[in-house]
């Protein structure tokens, strides 16, 4: 599904709205895209996006949620492209902030984001009338990263695991009708953003992805750094391509093939 209109968000199943915002590079584009969820008790923002999109995000969130903005935000980790708007958003709207329990020498208050509620891995919480669990992620850069699973939409929000996209696919939702994400788009993203991927064992990653699909009923795979994938089949196919991309990087690094 490709949307070329100028609606403030791209609609996904289960009252999940994709705030598609991407960063153009030489040939491909790089998503840094939060998600907005409508709950019975308010709007929940997953991730805060990049500072280059700050004004645009405030405008689009208010266009969807009204001038009062969001009621809660959940941040997967404290990397700048994920949190750099948190302070500006808090100066704009009043909302509750939920973050990963850090255990590191950084925490949201120290970083100027104000008070927050720390969430533990595998913990389940009600936020704005929706139910969230924070799974252990199998692919992260920052150690304290948590993924976010929304039980209502069966959506898994995946922090840094992602892929690039072509300039024609900025608003594309990858479902059964859309072209699948290519191995090359995943590999190019990984090699830029996750420089440790060359060390990963592809089979361990295949098992890890299967384990998370087994533990959670997932209908929407929602990366911050990529187009969302909708449907069990496309999600499983995406994971298989992700493993292929990891394998290609691993083999190129250690066996001299490409």
């Amino acid at each position: 599904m490709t949307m070329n209109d100028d609606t403030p968000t791209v609609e996904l199943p289960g009252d999940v709205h994709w705030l598609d915002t991407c960063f153009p590079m030489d040939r491909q584009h790089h998503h840094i895209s939060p998600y907005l969820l409508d709950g019975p008790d308010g709007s929940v923002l997953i991730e805060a996006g990049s500072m280059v999109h700050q004004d645009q995000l405030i405008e689009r969130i208010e266009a969807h949620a009204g001038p009062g903005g969001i009621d809660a935000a959940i941040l997967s980790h404290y990397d700048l492209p994920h949190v750099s708007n948190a302070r500006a958003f808090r100066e704009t709207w009043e909302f509750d902030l939920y973050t990963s329990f850090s255990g590191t020498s950084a925490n949201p208050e120290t970083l100027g984001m104000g008070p927050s509620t720390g969430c533990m891995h595998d913990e389940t919480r009600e936020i704005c009338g929706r139910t969230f669990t924070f799974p252990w992620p199998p692919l992260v850069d920052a150690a304290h990263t948590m993924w976010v699973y929304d039980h209502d939409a069966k959506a898994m929000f995946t922090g840094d695991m992602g892929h690039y996209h072509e300039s024609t696919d900025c608003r594309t939702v990858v479902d059964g009708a859309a072209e699948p994400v290519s191995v090359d788009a995943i590999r190019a993203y990984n090699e830029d953003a996750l420089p440790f991927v060359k060390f990963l064992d592809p089979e361990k990653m295949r098992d890890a992805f299967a384990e998370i699909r087994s533990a959670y009923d997932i209908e929407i795979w929602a990366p911050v750094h990529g187009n969302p994938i909708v449907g069990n089949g496309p999600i499983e196919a995406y994971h298989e391509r992700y493993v292929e991309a990891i394998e290609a990087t691993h083999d190129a690094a250690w066996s001299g093939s490409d």
Partner: protein
Amino acid sequence: MSDGLREDPPDWYDPDRLVHVCNNAYLIVGDETLLYDTVSPGAREQLMDGLDEVLGERGLDYIVPSHPEAPHAGNANALLRRYPDATLLSSAYGRGEELYYLDQGRHVEAGETLDLGGYTVEFLRAAFPDTAFHIWMKEHTSNTLFTADWMGAPHVDGECLLFSDELDSPLSPAQILEFQARALRWLQYCDPEPVFETIDDLIETHDPDIVCPAHGTVYREDATGYMERMKTVIEMITTGERLAELK
């Protein structure tokens, strides 16, 4: 600490002493001065006081965040305000530097050297990174390797600012694992052989006398022995259970 450690405490763990994890920056003072890493904003005052004490009226010439996470780059802007003539040097290895405010500095690549007058630093591609824009460094005069998140380890109350060889009990692979498995979560899913090869290559290429991690005590005796022992740490991580969050 995790509940598992409390229930089955290893030799190095003393329930009466708090466990600490370092957040280190390293200052090299030659004719010019360079700060590798900037520590967390939570330690900003301590960092600035320390720099005042060592530098006095001298300026800071170079600021090098090892990578753009808050505990490593979180004081870069504050330092640039305090030392407006300083040059920010950041890793060339990543895309989208604007997203990290890294476009305001100069990018350095592996092999580039900087003569500080009395000390010479060489920038190295980080062998074991987590994020993009990661850079390691070697100082040639002292033969010191600066390894960011690699080779960090916890210590206990009363051991702050000691060297690894001065700790009450020698650093064991199990103690190093407590930090390393949590800091580089990808190690749990790694293929150990390329990691071992990379460790061998680091030892052969650099043979450092001193290893300075950002999150652990400095190794100034048997540094390469500890690098070898990281293979045991990796074996333990890849065959063991995932460690819970520190709390």
